[in-house]
């Protein structure tokens, strides 16, 4: 089987290599999974580049998530059968044909397009938990987010729509306005210094109860400037790598909170059965065609260098998520 691995830090296209090796037979309590698809996230690229806080022990196999089917079963494993579709554990190193892991903690995956499904474990729960756990959001309430065309941003539009929550979506490129409106965004605006005034005009002065920021820098303050006093900005991404800026007016006089949002920590506040329920819910939405990602391209594992090069481009040069397929 093939496995993608890097043994030194550098530009992903230079350091990622394909190796041929045997799949270890599953021991007691383990299963092997034949991978079908795994996405390339920015975090995978950060790891290969050795960005601060993303440095894994080397050598390392990238791939935080993916989807596959059970291909071998070790002793004592009763809950899975051959051919069952599963999501492997997060950060398992999914860029390979086959992986042998503990059966405990695997989540069942529905049928459907493998490339789309491979994105289900990470981004959809992020968007889902943001809307579920913050802002006390009810039908008709408004939220505002930037990076609205990101994968999380698009899921957030879809998930908000399903709950009757209205979204203001901030983007950097005007050509995204129609696209995100079609996806279900109630208001789509291009970022800028006068954002608060334009949001007010576009929403007829609606009270906006929650801000979601993945851009950072002054973009955090611009999101905060659109919110009702006393509300929260969640920072869940770091597209610019700048610190989040919050003015004294905003925190001190307007009582806006800035909260770091990390999906895994948010899940840690739930019991395992509640986490499972979230995943079941999202899997069902996927099956019903209510959750979809924008796929920029799919690449065979053999072409992993092309794939990481594509994933490293930004905005209009990338146009969505890059997926590795192992079929």
């Amino acid at each position: 089987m093939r496995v993608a691995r890097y043994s030194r830090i550098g530009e992903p296209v230079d350091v990622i290599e394909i190796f041929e090796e045997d799949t270890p037979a599953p021991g007691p309590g383990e299963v092997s999974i034949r991978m079908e698809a795994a996405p390339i996230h920015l975090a995978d690229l950060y790891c290969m580049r050795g960005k601060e806080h993303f440095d894994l022990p080397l050598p390392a196999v990238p791939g935080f998530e993916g989807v596959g089917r059970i291909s071998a079963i070790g002793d004592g494993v009763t809950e899975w059968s051959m051919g069952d579709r599963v999501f492997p554990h997060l950060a398992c190193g999914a860029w390979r044909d086959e992986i042998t892991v503990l059966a405990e903690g695997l989540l069942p995956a529905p049928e459907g397009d493998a490339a789309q499904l491979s994105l289900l474990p990470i981004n959809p729960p992020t968007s889902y938990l943001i809307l579920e756990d913050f802002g006390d959001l009810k039908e008709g309430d408004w939220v505002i987010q930037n990076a609205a065309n990101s994968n999380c941003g698009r899921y957030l539009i879809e998930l908000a729509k399903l709950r009757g929550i209205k979204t203001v979506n901030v983007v950097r490129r005007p050509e995204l306005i129609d696209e995100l409106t079609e996806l279900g965004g109630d208001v789509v605006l291009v970022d800028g210094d006068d954002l608060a005034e334009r949001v007010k005009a576009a929403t007829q002065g609606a009270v906006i109860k929650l801000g979601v920021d993945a851009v950072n820098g002054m973009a955090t303050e611009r999101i905060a400037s659109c919110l009702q006093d006393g509300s929260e900005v969640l920072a869940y991404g770091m597209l610019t790598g700048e610190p989040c800026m919050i003015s004294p007016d905003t925190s001190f006089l307007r009582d806006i909170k800035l909260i770091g949002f990390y999906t895994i920590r948010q899940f840690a506040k739930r019991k395992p059965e509640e986490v499972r329920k979230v995943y079941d819910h999202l899997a069902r939405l996927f099956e019903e065609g209510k959750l979809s990602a924008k796929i920029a391209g799919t690449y065979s594992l053999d072409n992993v260098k092309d794939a990481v090069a594509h994933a490293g481009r930004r905005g209009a040069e990338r146009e969505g998520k890059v997926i590795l397929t192992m079929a």
Partner: protein
Amino acid sequence: MKALQQSAYGPPLEVVALIDVDAPTPGPTEIVVEVEAAAMHLADLKFINGDPGFRWFEMPRTPGHEGLGRVVALGDQAKGFEIGDRAFLPVGAGTFCQKVAAKADDCTPAPEGDEIQLVLMSLNAMTAFILVNDISAPAKDEWIIQNGANSSCGRFVIAIAKKRGAKTVNIVRRPELIEELKAAGADAVIVDAGDPDATAALVKEATGGADIRCGFDCVASTGTVTIARCLRESGTVINYGFMTGKSSEMAFQDLFLKSITLQGMNMSSDRTAMERKAVLQDLANMTVAGELEAKIAGTYTLEQAQEAFAHQARTGANRQGKIIILPNG
């Protein structure tokens, strides 16, 4: 009587004048207080200069947020005070003048004692009290961290936390403050190393690697980053000031990898007006008992107001504490 009058936003020399006006007479539910001491704050200068976010007022106005003095006149229906009693004026009363009328219900009885110290209770000491007891509420021996530790509020935080049995680690910019703040009750004093990680390492060493849940930031800019860096997972930075005049910064690594929250201090807190009066009296009693003591940089009369504003505008070692106005000499 004499009063300072601000006629527009601008430099104090241009927009603030000493004028003669009629002394106020009390409305039915009001008292008139002859001001013994009025505190000056950085915010007073900002409200005079009309800095961004500090243009709240109609002109002309009398500056001065905080003051206390003796009751010299009573309205027919004013309750709770007699002539000669000492009273704290409500915050924002316009205290840089000789006499102020205010609703009796909004005033708080003040104890006998040093008016120059007592006049700082309504804002700086109240802020410190709310930060320590209402917002962070540390357990006995629990550590809290703050920057701007040599500010009036920072010093009150040290004293109030100590009384509660909590420990403070204090970040300052000047090494000569270490001994001074330790003498004031600080458990640890760290000179900012200029880099959040380096400062956090010093804090870790000074506290024996304590888990710090809450930090107070009155510096903003990278000062906020440093406080966040010193906190444990899911900790909270409470911003209550902005000495740098810049925005608070939060590094993504602290937000994301540690789930740190940045929140402003909501001065209104959850306390009723009655409870706040009780807190104010407690703080005043602590001052009388010598448990709270502010560093006073200088006292000035109304005639010396321009010198007082110039002194207030200096920072750090060039100011050395609070400026107090003594309107009746």
